[in-house]
């Protein structure tokens, strides 16, 4: 979070809205620890990471949906996911990610 704050503040000063994605559960060989974070601006810019690059693209999409609805979301990613081919974790781990708007 410390390292994301400057970026979040810049986006907010530019009048963009910001969503925050946090790893709230990790199983198996997930590459990022509990609490790993990524911030996403309403323009689709990102800072930080929640995986080794496996699910960030999908998280940006979800974050934009969260920003337009204003409602937080809890999403699970993993090899058994329907989207395994597109956003599965190549490491075989599973992640649960909470995406919330900063309001």
């Amino acid at each position: 979070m410390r390292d994301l704050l400057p970026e979040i503040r810049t986006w907010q000063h530019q009048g963009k809205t910001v969503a925050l994605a946090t790893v709230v559960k990790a199983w198996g060989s997930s590459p990022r620890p509990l609490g790993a974070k990524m911030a996403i601006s309403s323009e689709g810019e990102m800072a930080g990471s929640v995986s080794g690059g496996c699910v960030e693209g999908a998280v940006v999409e979800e974050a934009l949906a969260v920003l337009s609805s204003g409602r937080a979301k809890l999403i699970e990613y993993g090899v058994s996911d329907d989207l395994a081919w597109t956003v599965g974790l190549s490491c075989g781990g599973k992640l649960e990610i909470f995406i919330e708007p900063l309001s």
Partner: protein
Amino acid sequence: MEQAILDKLEEKLAAHETVAVATVLRGPIAGQVLLDATGRILAGGFESEQLTAAVAVSSKSYLADLRSGREEIRIDDQTSDLFFEVYPPPPQIIVIGAVHVAIHLIAFGKRLGYRTVVIDPRTAFATVERFAEADELLIEWPTEALAKLVITDNTYFAMLTHDLKIDLPAIEIALRSPARYIGTLGSKKTHSKRVAALREGRFSEPDIARIHNPIGLDLGGRRAEEIALAIIAEIVAVRHGRP
């Protein structure tokens, strides 16, 4: 996350205080709170007073262990799925000796999220221009400077002067502290003088064995940047339990 929580969180992180954020991920009562190290609520809230009280109680164990975690709290047949995220104070690197290697070590340390402190009584070395990136620059003898700092088991010392009259008092203080890492720059000859002085100062062999000398992993580099990289690499390894 509400702006009020974000603002307060930013303020507390900047002050290097331990705080936690508790968030309802799933459940009938939404909400989020920011708690201080004692479990007192600093910002945010839940609509249910019972949940607020239960969260304050649960937060204590996470704050005490400085770990984040997930927990379900049941109130009147309703379950709330919560995430407790603890923000411990950052690890701290204390560099004794405002030498060239120190400039690069501070830069690497900052990049990796360490709080950085440089101590050197020699005004020719310890200048604000050279150490603009450091969180603290103390132009004092180590004994005076270290008395002002909190040394925890998440503190890492790099002694870089290889001048015994500056290094030795700092090593003695570090050895009496819970510091996780003590590395010293210097040849075998310099180090054997240090060891002899420490033995005379009644330090035990296990105490002396805490010192990493020569400092840093053996990467083979000779440039100041390369030596700084070897030192920060050793600090990272020690921090994560590698020998």
